[in-house]
């Protein structure tokens, strides 16, 4: 039944958007993490969305119109790291510069708003489908 398919598709959208929101939260939280686990500064993460066939078959999902969404990969931004002049830091190089994460707070805020808007749209689609399915039961 197609209305229950809406629930799956909107659910996949909400899952993907919340992962995007997680990435934003991680980036903002680590905006000043100059030393990560590998000794290197934190690099901003970005999620990559990909359309997948909602019924699990067929590669060209868009042509049939039935496409959920999934997070295909989480990539690290290759933007240059920020350099902060802080000769007193123990992490400073020989010129006195400390490498800081390449997190751009403006980008992150815009990304967060966009994720919020998309999540709300998914939720709306979910609720409408639920209402319609319940209405159908009353025929």
């Amino acid at each position: 039944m197609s209305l229950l398919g809406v629930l799956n598709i909107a659910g996949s959208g909400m899952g993907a958007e919340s992962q995007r929101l997680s990435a934003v939260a991680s980036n903002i939280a680590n905006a000043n993490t100059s030393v990560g686990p590998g000794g290197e500064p934190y690099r901003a993460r970005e999620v990559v969305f990909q359309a997948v066939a909602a019924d699990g078959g067929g590669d060209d999902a868009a042509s049939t119109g039935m496409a959920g969404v999934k997070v295909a990969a989480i990539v690290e931004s290759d933007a240059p790291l920020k350099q902060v002049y802080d000769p007193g830091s123990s992490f400073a190089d020989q010129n006195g510069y400390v490498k800081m994460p390449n997190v751009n707070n403006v980008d992150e805020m815009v990304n967060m708003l966009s994720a919020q808007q998309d999540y709300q749209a998914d939720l709306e689609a979910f609720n409408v489908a639920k209402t319609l399915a319940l209405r159908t039961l009353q025929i």
Partner: protein
Amino acid sequence: MIGTLDSSLEFYRQVLAVRGYRQEVLAADIANASTPGFKAVDVDFAQALENATGGAGTSGTDRPRTWLVEEPGQMQAGNTGGDASAAAAGAVKYQMGTQASLDGNSVDLDLEKTTAASNAVDYEAVASFTTLTLKMLSTAINGSAGQQGGS
């Protein structure tokens, strides 16, 4: 007689299936509002219904309104046991005229939301018609409620 009962409800079944399928397509657009390269699609409702009902279901000017036809044969052509969703799948088209963003995504979220809302209202309307048709048939079979109570 059973043919009449069947044909009066069959059309609503097809319409509900096409409307439900369209709701799914619109949900897929909304879910992929941020997917790079995703092209927005929509169901051509007139064509989908025409496919589903075998060419007798659109609101063209010279076509009979199928839910009022007296010949049940018009409802039967090409739609016996047919799956309306499969017919609607043939009428899925790319949306034209929406501005694609830099990543190649052409989903206009506001447009999708309003279209989905309007489609939902249409779905509820058809569901109401179906309920009323069933009540009408029930009245035809049982007589009016007042007479039933009096007997």
